[in-house]
């Protein structure tokens, strides 16, 4: 229990530190939202007036205080440009990004675990080379290029086999469930196949280590076949490692999908962040980044705790010397 409390306090401290870093880093960027709003041909007075209206003329410490004060009340503020509550905007964007990540993760798990196990069990040199090749190539394809390739192959209207939409999200959002799901297929495949290749390499290496370490021999000595030993014992033993990898992968996908969302014209968190940053809508950007950072840290926290639960040697520290 002490471990969980320690980790949680660390989580809160890290969040505070990150909020300062985000706030300071964004203030260094050239340009500001008032200039963007006023545009070309505006008299200098208008920019100053807009800055005052938006509270951009206050000292940085006061601006940071306002922002943090809002955060403590669970209020992320309003976007300077769109005038909408950032919480609701992020929620709207997250309703696209997180299903996309979840689908991508499913694809990655199916591809990564199954091929990882198959690569471990493969005995023919030709088959092993094939798996090795996929692991290297699949993992090193840039997401943008992979996405373009899938568009060329499967995009409705332009692809060789036009079955999936490749642009945008349906007007009705998730009310048009089929349309919404269809529009996420290609982006999810892009994310999933690339990350799946990495997961496959991890799985194969973890299982390979186990095979060479003798634990599976023990299982086989007890009557398991090699395949059973790998699937039933090996996977379970490799689970703590794989959970860490999948956790990191999940967090990494949040940033990874930025490129993908722009490519597939999905109005998710990633593409929104790019737009807001371009417009210097700093209040929106800092809140979005803060949420992402909190999410990353939360994933790390959960992975750490899970790791302890799954790894019997570490489990005792969770139980606090029971």
């Amino acid at each position, binding site marked *: 229990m002490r471990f969980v409390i320690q980790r949680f306090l660390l989580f809160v401290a890290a969040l505070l530190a990150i909020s300062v870093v985000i706030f300071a880093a964004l203030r260094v960027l050239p340009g500001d939202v008032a200039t963007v709003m006023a545009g070309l041909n505006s008299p200098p007075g208008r920019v100053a007036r807009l800055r005052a209206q938006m509270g951009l003329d206050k000292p940085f410490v006061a601006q940071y205080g306002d922002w943090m004060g809002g955060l403590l009340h669970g209020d992320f503020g309003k976007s300077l440009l769109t005038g909408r509550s950032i919480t609701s905007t992020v929620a709207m964007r997250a309703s696209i990004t997180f299903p996309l990540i979840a689908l991508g993760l499913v694809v990655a798990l199916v591809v990564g675990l199954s091929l990882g196990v198959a690569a471990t069990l493969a005995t023919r040199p030709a088959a092993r080379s094939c798996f090795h090749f996929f692991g290297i190539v699949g993992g090193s394809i840039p997401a943008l290029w992979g996405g373009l390739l899938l568009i060329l192959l499967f995009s409705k209207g332009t692809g060789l086999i036009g079955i999936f939409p490749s642009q945008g*999200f349906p007007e009705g959002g998730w009310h048009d469930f089929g349309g919404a799901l269809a529009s996420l297929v290609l982006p999810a495949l892009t994310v999933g196949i690339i990350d799946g290749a990495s997961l496959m390499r991890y799985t194969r290496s973890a299982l390979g280590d186990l095979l060479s370490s003798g634990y599976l021999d023990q299982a086989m*000595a007890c009557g398991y076949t090699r395949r059973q030993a790998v699937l039933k014992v090996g996977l379970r033993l490799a689970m*703590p490692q794989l959970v860490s990898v999948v956790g990191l992968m999940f967090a990494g996908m949040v940033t990874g999908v930025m490129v993908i969302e722009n490519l597939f014209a999905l109005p998710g968190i990633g593409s929104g962040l790019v737009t807001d940053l371009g417009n210097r809508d700093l209040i929106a950007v800092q809140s979005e980044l803060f949420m992402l950072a909190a999410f990353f840290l939360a994933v790390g926290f959960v992975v750490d705790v899970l790791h302890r639960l799954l790894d019997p040697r570490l489990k005792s520290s969770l139980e606090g010397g029971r």
Partner: protein
Amino acid sequence: MPTNPGAHGEDGATNNKTSMTSNQASGPAASQPTDAKPTDTKPSDVKPADAKPSAAASTDETLNAHVKGGSGSVAGGAGKKNGGKRHWIWLLVAAVVVVALVFVFVVVRKPKSQEAQGRQADTVTIGLKLAPTNLDIRNQSGSALDQVLVGNVYEGIVTRDSNNKVIPSIAKSWEKSADGMSYTFHLNQGMVFSNGDKLDAHDVAWSIEELVKRGYHDAESMQNFKSATALDANTVRIDLTAPYANLLWTLTGRPGLVFDQKAQYDPKTQAVGSGPYTIAKFTPNDSITLKANPKYQGANKAKTKTVVLRYFGDDNAAVNALKSGDVQVLAPVTENLAEPFEKDSEHFTVSAGDDTDKYVLAMNSKGDKTGDKRVREAIRYGINHKELIASRGGADKPMGGPISSLDPGYQDLTGLYPYNQAKAKALMKEAGYTPDHPLELRLTYANTYGTELGDQLRSQLKAIGIDLKVNVVEFSTWLQDVYNNKDYDLSLVDHNESHDFSQWVNTMYYYNYDNAQVRDFYNKAMAASTDKERDGYLAQAAKQVSRDAPADWLFNYRITTAMRKGVKGFPLNLNQTLLPLYGVTYTQVGK
């Protein structure tokens, strides 16, 4: 994390005796044999005689070979009961189910808004490029906002036609006093806002007064403004302190828009206007849905119930959307990507329309290096405009000065600095530079214009002795460095506004251009009592600006619009700044 799977023999066993005391983080504790103890299998392929008690599990090779032999031979046969096999089957089934589900949704799903052939569609979807970030037309700059709202959601006291000429809107007629100091507008009757409030002369006068008093966007273009007064419910008079020849045209834009003084709404996310459409849904940077305004009383009643505007930052994405039928119109379509639509004339029409976009290559008139007029002239002679235009598809028009063909005061100035490399080299040599000892210049522009233009200019100017460093930045950075701080040598911007010659008389503008004679011509033009007189002075001013070479006008961008056959009433001219949608209809023809 090692990525190299441990080398092991075909049977997976190793002779590494130390492995049992391995201390790898990933391995289980050696003292936990129960972890590796099978609990639920009775493998049929292991003969009872061979099944040793698990406590005596060992890495004995013969044993393992024996066990493996069994598994190898029965893997296929006994596989049905084999846990591994089951895993595979489940994975396969899951994958098939997912794929099947997706197929059902995608393939079997009825395509949305599939209209019966020959019947007019209830919804038309239009693909555009630049998205407005909010709807606050009084404060937020950007022509994307004018494009959506002016004439569709908000109406002005007057508006313009597709040739950029002033025509009636809320006012049905007007007259100008002989001294050019006051304008009287007679309004249509029985007009209402979309919330049901009546629209009369008081709203008109209040809107214009508010604009000037609060300094809303574009207020500064209401030059010499004195007051706007409602003479009665249907008559408004605008008084000036001095004649201003551009007043009527200015009122076709944001300064002339009429707002409901009683309405309470958040202008960033909502709109209450008197136009033929209302905003039904607005997703910033993605799409805007317009619904026909049921309360609209004017002459421009919406012909299509719903118009969806979708914004594509990515040109390829936009083209895909038109091909797949997600949008029926694409404006603009990048000309180099329009070819498939031009070829498929059975289903698509592609046309170019005129616009007032000027791609201005500004040369800092007070810059260290570009302050030298010879350098600026050399650049103008050294740019091959035909080549630039051809590489973009050929629809754009060359222009030799600051006024586009749709604006007052236009004349063809392309003869002033024709492409002439020899002359350019001579001027550069005079200034002290040759291709062997080039002059280094920075070209700074926003990433919205892509990288091709910068690359082309670099290669064209290299030949005359200029080493161009192309610096593509975010628009906000451009605003800060170039526009605000004037820290640049060369800059590139698409100035798409119409009637924007005043930039050249504003000495504080980022051009750093200052010519008293030009200011004098301009002031005379604005004080002129007839359009002809105004246009004459403007033409002289423009010619003088072009001669001074404070910039090169790369081309007048023409908008290429691609649409499905069956789309009617979509404006081609000026459609990036003014896009009246009331007449747009779509009737599906052919397959």
